[in-house]
């Protein structure tokens, strides 16, 4: 997998420090480093998850100014969270090579926006490289570290899902030795941003480093002419995963075109681009999401007064929304060359298929939480459609789907609390609820809660504490005693944090005891001030891994097939067999929620096999 290849690249590059925050499609890099250490493949001295991406980036920067080769990993929106130190980091630069891995998600497949993080290079003035395959990603880590140490700047390694999550063959290289000494000497003009004169000087320094980049990077062979064509009609410039679609489409069409693959996206090596542009009458830029390279190439071509026509998304040849694929790239090439369109045959599906919205897992504690929330709203004498429920990022956003259809918003990390608070502060007349997970709360929920407490707003916050970062694959949180690397940690209890922020009404309840939880919700909706309910119950997947001791079974003679359990809980362990409910025993983890709900007491506890 691309992310494992990047982890291998981190070993090869002699990294001494890796940090990050889990986020699809980036999470497996650090996961793989943990696995490599366990399996004896090799280890980076310090690898741990950080509380959020900003902290992760600052940690890695701290290591790198001490001469340690470092990396921080994140998904696209994580770079937004860490934009502040990103821009300041460009002014001080680094001593040890530093790589900022940002994994974008064209499609989008798992991300809230189709963010194109390439623009961050222009904003921060930091070099950026991008691979087109897993093995290239592995090699680029070492190249990025080398480049970083030569140019003294952090390097952004930008990837997309089709590289991070693609599986492909890799051929490992030799490993560089990590620098052994951690050394940091005071150099105030470089590291202190309080003097405006120094800041101007560092800005000039930064521009100078970028201007020197082509000669600094030349021997790293980051860009590559993949195909040379004698036919001048069309050349193609591409970077990242789309390079594959271009080469596949050309092979399929049996058409000759020049192809330039850019590995260094910022600053673009103008000499390389100009050489290529001069060889063709028309150049098609193939890239995902925004016309980023296209705008650069158009500017380069115009400054040099070239005759070549540079085309891409602005001409409508390729979509700005969604992923590219061999099919739409092929269509763009056909249009450029004036070839007849080859329509792909599309098979009709003759049967109406049911949709399959992703449910929560069997026995998921969030099922109990949302069931109790909806019941609590009713018990408070309110209607479900008059109490806005602000969701947040994590598995609990699946409450969007039936049967709960509970959340009204899901935005950015921590925004549940602050947006709910904002609506309330603006004068919204009815109660508002924010639902946030434990890790998301640690990541970005703390300051919003502080804000709500300080402003004395009426707000019910449910922190769904399943004691893990569940959605991205069960990483540890700051409340854990041991980190994923096996290191002893100082646990920071969620309750203490909430109390410490000044919340007076804090309760801890169990997701599997809905009667108590719905009463707490009712009280929380009707009382004034900030109320926090911490709903404690381990993620069902972890509970299942630890071993199930009991489960539940339906007594068919008692079940009337009223389906109340299915309609209210939507637990995937519940299914219908004939006209009765049946519990799929391999799925049941014994949470008891359905048994407590059954009006006919038809669901009984049995010992797990």
């Amino acid at each position: 997998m691309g992310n494992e290849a990047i982890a291998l690249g981190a070993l090869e590059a002699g990294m001494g420090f890796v940090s990050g925050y889990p986020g699809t499609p980036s999470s497996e890099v650090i996961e793989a480093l943990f696995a490599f250490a366990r399996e004896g493949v090799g280890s980076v001295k310090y690898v741990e998850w950080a509380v959020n991406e900003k902290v992760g980036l600052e940690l890695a920067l701290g290591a790198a100014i001490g001469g340690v080769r470092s990396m921080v990993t994140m998904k696209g929106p994580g770079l937004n969270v860490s934009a502040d130190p990103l821009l300041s980091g460009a002014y001080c630069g680094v001593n040890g090579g530093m790589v900022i891995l940002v994994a974008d998600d064209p499609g989008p497949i798992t991300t809230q926006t189709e963010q194109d993080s390439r623009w961050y290079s222009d904003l921060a003035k930091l070099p950026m490289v991008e691979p087109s395959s897993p093995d290239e990603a592995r090699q680029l880590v070492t190249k990025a570290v080398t480049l970083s140490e030569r140019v003294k700047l952090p390097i952004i390694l930008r990837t997309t899902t089709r590289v991070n999550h693609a599986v492909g063959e890799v051929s490992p290289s030799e490993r560089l030795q990590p620098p052994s000494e951690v050394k940091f000497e005071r150099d105030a003009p470089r590291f202190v941003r309080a003097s405006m004169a120094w800041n101007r000087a560092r800005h000039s320094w930064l521009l100078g480093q970028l201007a020197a980049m082509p000669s600094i990077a030349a021997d790293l062979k980051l860009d590559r002419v993949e195909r040379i064509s004698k036919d001048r009609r069309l050349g193609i410039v591409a970077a990242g995963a789309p390079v594959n679609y271009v080469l596949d489409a050309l092979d399929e069409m049996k058409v000759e075109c020049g192809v330039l693959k850019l590995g260094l996206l910022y600053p673009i090596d103008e000499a390389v681009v100009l050489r290529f542009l001069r060889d063709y009458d028309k150049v098609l830029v193939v890239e995902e999401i925004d016309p980023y390279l296209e705008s650069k190439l158009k500017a380069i071509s115009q400054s040099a007064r070239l005759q070549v026509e540079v085309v891409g998304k602005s001409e409508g040849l390729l979509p700005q929304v969604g992923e590219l694929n061999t099919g739409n790239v092929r269509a763009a090439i056909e249009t450029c060359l004036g070839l007849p369109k080859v329509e792909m045959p599309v098979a009709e599906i003759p049967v109406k298929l049911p949709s399959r919205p992703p449910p929560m897992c069997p026995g998921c504690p969030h099922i109990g939480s949302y069931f109790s929330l909806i019941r609590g709203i009713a018990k408070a004498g309110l209607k479900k459609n008059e109490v806005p429920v602000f969701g947040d990022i994590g598995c609990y956003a699946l409450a969007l789907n039936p049967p709960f259809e509970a959340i009204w918003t899901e935005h950015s990390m921590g925004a549940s609390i602050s947006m709910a608070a904002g609506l309330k502060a603006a004068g919204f007349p009815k109660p508002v609820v924010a639902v946030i997970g434990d890790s998301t709360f640690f990541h970005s929920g703390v300051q919003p809660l502080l804000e709500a407490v300080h402003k004395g707003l009426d707000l019910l916050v449910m922190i769904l504490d399943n004691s893990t970062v569940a959605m991205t694959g069960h990483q540890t949180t700051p409340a854990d005693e041991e980190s994923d690397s096996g290191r002893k940690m100082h646990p920071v209890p969620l309750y203490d944090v909430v109390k410490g922020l000044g919340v007076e009404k804090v309760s801890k309840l169990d997701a599997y005891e809905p009667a108590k939880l719905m009463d707490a919700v009712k009280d929380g909706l009707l009382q004034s001030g900030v109320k926090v309910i911490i709903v404690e119950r381990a993620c069902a997947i972890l509970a299942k891994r630890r071993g199930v001791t009991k489960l539940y079974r339906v007594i068919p003679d008692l079940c009337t097939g009223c389906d109340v359990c299915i309609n209210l809980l939507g637990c995937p362990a519940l299914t219908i067999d004939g006209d009765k409910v049946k519990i799929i025993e391999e799925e049941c983890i014994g949470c008891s929620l359905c048994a407590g709900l059954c009006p006919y007491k038809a669901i009984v506890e049995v010992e797990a096999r």
Partner: protein
Amino acid sequence: MNEYNILIASVGGQGGLTLSRIIAEAAVNAGFSVRTGETLGMAQRGGSVQSFVRIGREVRSPLFPLGTADALLAFEAAEAVRSSAFVKKDALILVDPEVKQSITTLTKKEKYPPVEGLLEALRARSRNVRVVEAMREASKLGHPKSANVYMLGAFCALSDKLPVPSVEEAIANVLGRRSSSAVDVFRRGLEASKAVAREV
């Protein structure tokens, strides 16, 4: 080998992703170039999952377009049909007739179509449809989690694209502790496939 495209259709939690990883490693073990990709939403379990595997001398893109799969391995009847637009005419289709209801069918907002109708739709797409009761057989062997490698056994018997030793090595590597029972289930799938996978 010319490029060979395999699509694995499953419901999250059925082992489709793991199977794509096993096939990829088996292909690399056998000296091929390989790429995989998947269409996977926020579902860890319970959503529709399509895994794409491309094997050949030099493959690049992780996905392939509609109408270009040489084989479809499907672990659920409706998911098989959902993915059938990806297969070439008369591609090898291995389908487990297992039915996984979705929340919309359980709450009666939508209907789950009759399985026979689903198989009919597959047959309209290909004359090479085989029913492989992978889940049932793997459960009978006491390893329901190994339904994916049972299906892989059937695939190996019916397609000869992957050498058996390369596959067994890949199963051992990918599944680690669970691999010895999984290799057994794989072998049962391989041996039984001609008897069990009845032509429909």
